[in-house]
């Protein structure tokens, strides 16, 4: 009965099956969105404002709104997240308080996004009086992706070999010089991975922007960061559930544009990361 060869085959088959179960739905989603959305894609759809109660025209304001929001979120979250990660991995002593802080940050990335939305509403929109604006939305999204950026950046910093730090310190370099010239350059690929993950999440979330920025229908471009804006995920929600008789291809076309936008931004980050990895010399 005991047949290691057969056990191995069964194990491989199960592992393969599990992989397949993940790949097939993802593949299907992409295929269906492309199939149903592609007919809607044309120049007018990408560059025009929505018309006829969002049943025709384009989605340009929503594309621009999402771009602004994602860029704003990254501008806010990347520097702060990186500095916090440097503090936690390089300076914070390994004591109970810091361990609780680390644990809390990891757990924050599991908080439902609607909670961030409410938080953003309370803090930025109402308390700081930014109103429903790109600023409020960017800050809310930024806070939502901070835990992802901190956690992945910290891991990237901690994976730089201790021996490099010892060498640098033994040459009389200060701790900050060591971080700046040895640790950080070698952690950049990992930090970018965190940024990519955060970026995708910021672009796709609906709940955090619902109360803080998203306009139901705003057929013009935002003029400043204190303006409201349309955004792709929310627009998709609106035309799918709130507006009757929207053509299916418009909905899938919007989804396709959102998907493509996230992929495109990821691609840029992946290319940057690839260039840094190529320079990695160990």
């Amino acid at each position, binding site marked *: 009965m005991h047949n290691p060869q057969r056990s191995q085959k069964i194990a491989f088959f199960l592992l393969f099956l599990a992989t397949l179960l993940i790949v097939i739905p993802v593949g299907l989603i992409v295929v269906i969105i492309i199939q149903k959305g592609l007919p809607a894609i044309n120049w007018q759809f990408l560059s025009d404002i929505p018309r006829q109660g969002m049943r025709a025209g384009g989605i340009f304001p929503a594309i621009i709104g999402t771009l602004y929001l994602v860029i704003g979120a990254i501008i806010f979250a990347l520097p702060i997240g990186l500095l916090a990660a440097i503090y936690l991995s390089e300076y914070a002593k390994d004591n109970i308080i810091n361990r609780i802080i680390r644990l809390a940050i990891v757990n924050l990335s599991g908080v439902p996004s609607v909670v961030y939305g409410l938080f953003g509403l309370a803090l930025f929109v109402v308390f700081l009086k930014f109103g429903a604006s790109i600023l409020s939305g960017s800050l809310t999204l930024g806070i939502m992706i901070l835990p992802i950026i901190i956690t992945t950046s910290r891991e990237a910093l901690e994976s730089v070999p201790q021996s490099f730090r*010892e060498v640098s*310190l033994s*040459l009389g*370099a*200060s701790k900050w*010089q060591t971080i700046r010239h040895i640790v950080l350059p070698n952690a950049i690929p990992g930090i970018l991975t965190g940024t990519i993950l955060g970026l995708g999440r910021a672009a796709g979330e609906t709940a955090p922007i619902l109360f803080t920025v998203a306009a139901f229908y705003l057929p013009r471009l935002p003029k400043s960061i204190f303006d409201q804006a349309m955004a792709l995920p929310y627009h998709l929600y609106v035309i799918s559930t709130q507006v009757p008789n929207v053509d299916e291809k418009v909905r899938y076309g919007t989804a396709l544009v959102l998907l493509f936008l996230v992929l495109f931004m990821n691609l840029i980050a992946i290319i940057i990361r690839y260039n840094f990895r190529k320079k990695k*010399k*160990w």
Partner: protein
Amino acid sequence: MVKFSVKDLNIWFGQIHALKSVNIEVEANEILSVIGPSNSGKTSFLRMLNRLNDLYPNFKMSGSLEFDNKDIRKIDIESLRKRVGMVFALPLPLPLSIFENVSYGVKMHGIKNRNKISEIVERSLKQAYLWDEVKDRLSVTAFKLSGGQQQRLCIARTLAVEPEVILFDEPCSGLDPISTAKVEEAMLKLKKDYTIVLVTNNVKQAARVGDRTAFFLSGELVELDKTEKIFTAPNDQRTDGYIRGKFG
């Protein structure tokens, strides 16, 4: 002249008592070899001299340790480490080019003049007997070099910041006999200008290059004497046993 004066030094890593009442004086321009089995505290001793042990969060010490008659804890740590360089057990090039490896420390100490830096790099590589092998490919990543070349690069990197003392932590443990001979040759030449403390697992190496030899066992300094004396007529039976290869 005494470079390091160590009196009744005890150190702990958490519960582990790594060095027990060690008394040593390191003379200027000598090569002091430190031998002993693994876990005898010899590397911990070496890492005391440039305060690298301070990196461990649970490190504690008592007793006194003076460098040029000054309490080592009162010297600014960056300038101490600039004056007391270290070469590690494994060749550890930084993930930079050959040139940048050697110039790294110099730049960190604020020298910006390119000509000056190039001069220092060339001089240091020559001192480490590496210049001829790498002069045509200074911009290549240091990981392209062989193990022995990498270790000499690390020596050049240490020399570039112009230390007074060089600590060698088993510098030849990963090298073949020919590379080892080259590193030893460099050490003997360097003795003229530098004080050297050499921790080694290779008893014969200690005999070849050391002026004096210290024998550590379980965190205690068993014996410290002229190298010839240690290797011909040691006072302590344990020293005799170790250098004859009876244990360790």
